[in-house]
């Protein structure tokens, strides 16, 4: 009804594939893409990239500073730790945990949570009430503390860690999926499809599911960042990844004892975590906008308010 009627039409346009272009034009999202590509690349090719064996001890070369500090050299470009292991190589190998743990946890949580959310959203009624009551209850659990307790009692390890972390986040997938299904079911075109007699399976696959993919993949990216942080924190506290496996969080914990003499042992592995998570979160922020046409129209409007910005 308004003069901007034609912009309203833009809002109901399906999310187009122009989002790749949009991501690349946004410097912070581009940073995120670069970080993610590097994380995956480094993790995949760690043995070939790392100059030295990350577990090889050299007690003669203990606590060597990185190249930029006094006494540093390019032989151990980021210095060595208290056992003379090469920090650069350890950071490169540490990326593997920071990639695999979120991959496993988010997949487990995503598949289970989405299934539960679909069930609740589609069946509705009593099923929905019971499932959502359970999900709400789990949301009120003291998360990290409970995870610590489980890990302390069961004993740490890759799979325990991955499962405990997925236990903390599956409810998010369940709740979001249910919300998406419910709002998609409200859509008039779903109602229209029901009226022409389309089967529940068809309605689910053809009319509801396409609404889920974009927001759920964005959610997976956000939760991956969350899992990386939790893994690092648990490993730092000594209840996550255990030596001789390599984790950035674990290395920071080791470096802690040398906070006065060898601060790089804290700064560098921690920076690896920070940069990875920052990159992923920045990318997720852009993906969220790309997944939501309304959000991107808003973004366009906001960009148009900046003098000199593109105006179509």
């Amino acid at each position, binding site marked *: 009804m308004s003069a901007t009627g034609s*912009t309203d039409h833009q809002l109901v346009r399906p999310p187009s594939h122009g989002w790749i272009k949009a991501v690349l034009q946004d410097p912070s999202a581009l940073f995120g893409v670069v970080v993610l590509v590097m994380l995956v690349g480094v993790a995949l090719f760690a043995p070939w990239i790392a100059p030295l064996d990350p577990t090889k001890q050299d007690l003669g070369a203990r606590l060597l500073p990185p190249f930029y500090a006094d006494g540093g050299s390019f032989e151990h470009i980021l210095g060595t730790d208290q056992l003379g292991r090469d920090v650069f190589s350890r950071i490169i190998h540490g990326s593997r945990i920071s990639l695999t743990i979120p991959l496993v946890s988010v997949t487990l949580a995503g598949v289970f949570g989405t299934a539960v959310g679909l069930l609740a959203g589609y069946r509705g009624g009593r099923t929905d009430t019971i499932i959502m009551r359970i999900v709400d209850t789990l949301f009120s659990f003291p998360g990290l503390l409970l995870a610590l307790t489980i890990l302390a009692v069961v004993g740490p390890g890759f799979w325990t860690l991955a499962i405990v972390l997925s236990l903390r986040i599956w409810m998010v997938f369940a709740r979001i999926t249910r919300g998406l299904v419910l709002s998609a079911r409200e859509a008039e075109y779903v109602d229209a499809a029901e009226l022409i007699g389309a089967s529940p399976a068809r309605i689910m696959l053809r009319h509801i599911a396409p609404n889920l993919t974009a927001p759920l993949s964005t959610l997976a990216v956000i939760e991956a960042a969350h899992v990386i942080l939790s893994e690092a924190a648990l490993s730092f506290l000594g209840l996550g990844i255990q030596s001789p496996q390599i984790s950035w969080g674990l290395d920071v914990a080791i470096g802690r004892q040398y906070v006065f003499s060898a601060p790089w042992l804290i700064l560098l592995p921690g920076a690896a975590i920070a940069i990875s998570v920052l990159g992923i979160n920045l990318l997720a922020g852009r993906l969220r906008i790309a997944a939501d046409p309304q959000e991107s129209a808003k973004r366009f409007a906001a960009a148009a308010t900046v003098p000199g910005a593109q105006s179509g």
Partner: protein
Amino acid sequence: MTGDRPLLEIRSLEVVFPTPGGTVRAVREVSLSVNPGESVGIVGESGSGKSTIARAALGLIELPGRIVGGEVLWRGRSLSDEKIARRYRGRQISLVSQDPMASLNPIRTIGVQMTEVMARHLKLGKQQARRRAGDLLEKVGIPEPGRRLDQYPFELSGGMQQRVVIAIALSCDPLMLIADEPTTALDVTTQAQILRLISSLQKELGLALMLITHDLGVVAGACDLLKVLYAGEIVESGTADALFHHPRHPYTAALLGATPRLDGTTERLRIINGQPPDLRSVDIGCSFSPRCPNSTSYCESEHPVLEPDSRGGMFACWHPQNHLDARSVPREG
């Protein structure tokens, strides 16, 4: 207040909205003025630019929209100066917008929303403002005004909400009321109540009224003067009687023919073929020419400008209708 100086004057206004698909030219070369006590109806379909004109009249073209030409003057002073606009807005020019539920803040009481406006413009104290708010609610026909002040908008029906919006609009004794589709969200019987209320308040208080609507029926009884908008331009203006009985522009005539009437006699409605133009790429010629029965190749290449006709009205058309009754225009069948 002198009667001969217009309150609101819009001169050659041009407003654009950038969108991802191109820049929408929402309002093109629109000029109009409203004198004290006058009731002006602005009629147009969606996308015709009518709401943008309402916003412009309040100095409220919001980003990303931009005024790229012309000016809006309130009693001779430009409203593009935000400081000036802010002083008059809600004080001398008030707005009643389409959806009362959306127009009121859902989580603040009606009393707060009424008194904050009076505190701002009239510098009234809390008690004074509240008393005046109660009086205003009574004036717009809301029963138990004292109790209503402490209620939230969702506790009222749509018709009552719109009365509250009208009460807020009148709260600072404005000179002009802009009503932008004030009854579109309401039921027919409520619409009749609200239209009656606006008309009687306008007469009683000597307000100027700018009534913006897509519904020819709504302006027929409430306005003395009309402007017909098409694709961001005024294509015809004049007195209500002239426009309804002797439309000159083929669009005005076609709109009348397409409007179903309760007292109509024909089985078939007259249709206007085609769709309104895409405002992102407006033709050089007459915007209505692709849909116009009178259109010639000349219309496609030459843009008609508003010209006065013998009865004091204006129209922008190369091949206007004759002085015939709209209803005698042959109907498509």
